[in-house]
C-alpha cells in the first residue's frame, strides 16, 4: 500500500471512500468561511463559531465570552489548495496543479494534499463532494 493510500483514508464520518473515489472527489469551501488575503500571498480564513448551544457547552462558551470566530492562517501552499477547493476541481487535478507549481512528485503531492484536506475537513472548512457509484 502506497503512502498516499494511507493518507487518503480520510475520516469517513460514516462514508467510506476508496482511493479512486477520493481522487475524483471535488472539495468545496464552506460558504460561511471568509478569506482575507495577506501581502505575502497567504490568506487568513475566518470561520464563525457556534456559541448558541442550549446545553452546558454553549452556556459555558457564552459565559466565558469566547470569540465568535476562529481564524486560520494558510501559507502559500495552503492558499493554493484553498483557492482550488471550488467544487469544480477534483482532488486529482489539485494534486496535479501542486506538482506543476511546486515540482513535487506524485506521492509527495498526494500525501501532503491528503493530510491538508483532512485537516480542513475536520475543521469543517471544506466539504468533499463525492459522485455516487
Amino acid at each position: 500500500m502506497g503512502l498516499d493510500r494511507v493518507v487518503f483514508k480520510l475520516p469517513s464520518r460514516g462514508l467510506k471512500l476508496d482511493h479512486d473515489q477520493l481522487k475524483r472527489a471535488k472539495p468545496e469551501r464552506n460558504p460561511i468561511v471568509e478569506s482575507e488575503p495577506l501581502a505575502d500571498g497567504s490568506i487568513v480564513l475566518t470561520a464563525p463559531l457556534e456559541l448558541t448551544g442550549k446545553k452546558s457547552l454553549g452556556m459555558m462558551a457564552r459565559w466565558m465570552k469566547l470569540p465568535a470566530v476562529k481564524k486560520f492562517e494558510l501559507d502559500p501552499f495552503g492558499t493554493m489548495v484553498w483557492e482550488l477547493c471550488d467544487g469544480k476541481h477534483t482532488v486529482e487535478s489539485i494534486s496535479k496543479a501542486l506538482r506543476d507549481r511546486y515540482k513535487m512528485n506524485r506521492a509527495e503531492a498526494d500525501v501532503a494534499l491528503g493530510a491538508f484536506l483532512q485537516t480542513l475537513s475536520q475543521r469543517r472548512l471544506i466539504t468533499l463532494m463525492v459522485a455516487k457509484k
Partner: protein
Amino acid sequence: MRFAWQGFQLTHPDDWAPAALTGDRREGYVRLASAGSESIQIRWQTAKNAPSRKALSVYLQKLAQDSRKAVGDFTSEVEELPTGYSYRYGGAIAGRGLLFRNEACGRNFFIEALGKKSDRLSMRLKETVESFTSSDSDQERWAILGLDLLLPAGLEVRRRELLAGRTVLMLDAKGCRITAERWGLADLLIAKHGLIPWASGLLRIPATRFQEAEHGLLAQSKPLPWLHDHTLVTLDQANNQLIVVRSRFRSGKWKPTWDWIASCSSYPAEG
C-alpha cells in the same frame, strides 16, 4: 526518475514511489509502485553461482499456491536465456520477470513487473531492465525520491525517512556517518526563513558558521580532536528542493565534496 540503492540503479516513471525497501547490500528487496496496479520489484542476493532454474520454480510454485487460493487459476512460462531466465505468469496478478546474474557485483537479481493482465507489463519490464545497472566500483549512487547522491562505496543504511516533502537517508561506514536530506518546496522555505537561518535551525549549527561556497553553503567544525563535522547545503532550483549533506568523519576519504550531490556535480545524468 532515478532510483539507486545498494549498488544498483534504474529509472522509473516520475509518479512512482518506493513502497518497500528491505535488506542490505548482500540480500534485499525493493518494490516501486505506481498509483494504479503496476509495480516493479527487485530482489537481490550475493551468490557464488548463477541463479538456478530450481530457485525460479520454487518461486513460481509459491505464486501458484497463492493464486489458486484466490482465483483458482495460474499459468506460467519460463524461458532460458544465455544470461539467466525470463519468465511470465498469470493468475490473481500477472507478472513478467527476469532472473540473472551480474558478475560485476557478484549478485543474482530478480527483476519483475507485476500488475493486472491488461497492464503493459512486458514494456515496463523492458524499460526497467534497459535502465538497470549494477557495478562494484569505488563510488556508489544512492537516489530515492529526488535525493540523488554519488558517495564513496562501503556505506550501509542506518536510517531512512520517506515523508511528504522530506527524504532523509542516514548512511554509516567505519569512522563516518553521513546524513543526507532532501526538502521539497524550497521556494516557500527560503521565502519564509532565508537559506542560512533555515539551515542553521535544521542542523543546529550557529548561522555565523556557514560560509558561501561554490554551490551553496558550507559549514565546518571539529567537535573532537579526531572528529570532523562538515555540512553542505545547496538549492536545486530545477527541482525546487534543498539538499543537505552532513558528514561526521575521521578519515579524509569521507570529507564531503560538492560532487557527492548529483545536482551540483558533472557526473552524467544517466551514469
